């Protein structure tokens, strides 16, 4: 869940308020405030859209897990997700999503179960990638 708006990074641009799919923030005196934390779905979208990396979403989606602001700022975790995603000024960071199929295909070709072996032997690697869902059959 969203845990932190780092005050001295936030410029009050209001993008997080607008883009949060579950309307977690309110805009109060020109600053975003976490008003409905219970509604946070821990999707990290606000972090992607925050151009100054002022937001921190904790990985626990079930309950609040308060964090220490100084610790988080020092951790280097702020903005890491946005950078790895290649957003904004990080556009040179490659988006390798198109290679996700390799994960499935290589797992399938190694998995010891008979159904996986059958699948791997019947399909070419391209077709195996096209399944792109694991497990491939149910």
């Amino acid at each position: 869940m969203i845990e932190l708006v780092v005050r001295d990074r936030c410029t009050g641009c209001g993008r997080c308020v607008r883009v949060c799919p579950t309307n977690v923030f309110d805009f109060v005196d020109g600053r975003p405030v976490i008003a409905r934390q219970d509604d946070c779905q821990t999707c990290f979208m606000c972090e992607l859209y925050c151009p100054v990396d002022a937001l921190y979403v904790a990985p626990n989606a079930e309950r609040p897990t308060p964090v220490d602001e100084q610790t988080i700022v020092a951790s280097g975790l702020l903005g890491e997700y946005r950078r790895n995603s290649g957003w904004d000024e990080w556009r040179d960071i490659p988006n390798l999503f198109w290679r996700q199929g390799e994960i499935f295909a290589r797992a399938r070709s190694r998995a010891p179960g008979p159904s996986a072996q059958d699948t791997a032997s019947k399909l070419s690697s391209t077709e195996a990638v096209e399944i792109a869902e694991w497990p491939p059959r149910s």
Partner: protein
Amino acid sequence: MQKHFAVADADKVAYRLEAVTDVLVVGGGLAGGWAATAAARGGASVVLVDKGYFGTSGVTATAGPGHWWVPPDPSKRAAAIEDRMGRAFGLADSRWMERILDTTWRTLPTLSPYYDFPKDATGEVHYRGLRGPEYLRALRKQAEDAGVVILDQSPALQLLLHRDGSVAGATGVQRQVGRGRIWVIRAGAVILATGGCAFRSRLLGSHNNTGDGYLMGVEAGAELSGMEFSNYHTVALAESSQTRSASYSFADFFDAEGNLLPTQGRTDYTRVLARALLRGPVYATLARTPLDLREIVSHIQPAFVATFRRRGIDPYTEKFEITLHGEGTVRGIGGLRIVDDACQTAVPGLFAAGDAASRELIAGATSGGGNQNSAWALSSGLWSGQEAAARARRTGPRATEPATEVGQAGLRPAKSPKSATAADARALVQTVKDELLPYDKVMFRRGDRLRDSLARLDRAWDDVRDHLAGEGTAAVAAREAAALVASARWSYGAAAARKESRGMHQREDCPDSDSRLARRQLVGGLDRVWTRFDGDAERTWVRP
């Protein structure tokens, strides 16, 4: 053609937004994004409303679809379709599979001006897999450029109907304007692209997916189909919503005593995990992941990596606790029944696209997974958008004709509104979660347990119908609770009436398939839920 788009005079706008448009799209996810652009390019004025933000809302924005992607080589297409027909358990239609393969292949590359499709070392451009946030950002920009008017943070509450039963528009609330400003949009056609219903399971990105479109559609006269196929599950790090699960292809799972669970190579491995989770905690490690893949996962699924980093867990060397999140009708199948090739529902002018529509036509009784469902969302969005624009061109918005608001549950309580509160809506949502999320109820189904759940859900519905209401933004929570309770009853009502096991619908008390039931099952009804197998004349009432 003449476009119809107008906003009412400024005085009224202060407390109520009124507009007239050719086509209204409800929902700004993968399906709604393609639908809106297709309608606008078809010459229609288009308004798209989203509960949250067109770009971050829904299960695609937070994930990344690899579309069903087969080159237009007849033998390859035939093989892919034959493969899927083989696990559809008699409920799919090969013609529809052919249609979505063709439409997806021809359409996805047209997004090139807005999405940077990667080129590999051989010069081949890779179209089929797109990362979610970038995909939705591209769809938004494409829609904006096509002239679509976007209203974010503007959940729809109900549909409007003409006297002849055709759709006339919708109403909703702009939840970031004051304490909620009502919007009323008259339209010649409405496309429901509201997503599936994940019953608040914490499936990534599904918080808004509360079955709103199902409830709005049924209130307007539409039917649902395939709602019993609503129990696909996905693995996630315990206490997280991180259901990006590709990396679990290399997972080994253990019980609390450290015993390796027999999941490897098994197609039903989530059922193995669910049985183990009913006994106690389950742990995983991704230690078998090849080193070169570990290095690029942060560039494939950065949110997956972020979740582990923030928990301080190295999934490749440590064991970590896992859970399973139900997907409901997201990677399930059920949704509004489609009656024609343009994805129209039984209500004239009302279309359903993406997970709001039943995916039995392309997936049968087995999850279409990310790839078939994405191809479906794109294709159904495109077709419904094109036909909605054509329809609006024929009829115009008919905005001067009288129209009726058809929303009931959570909007207009049948008895005294006992001044419903946010707490009431929360309690109702909890009831739904208590019945739809436990693995022993939803995965390992049994007639007696389904009937027990239905009895509790019927009582919840009585409460919704008689008392639940809310003003402004509270109306949104009330309608979500109503839609969740309704969707739960349709799902379990259909599951109780399908007295066999087929695809993802597995009944412990009827473990075999019954060849006489190799048919789609329709479901609907509000105060009383009915079901009807396709081909039967009579509806059957669901009795707990």
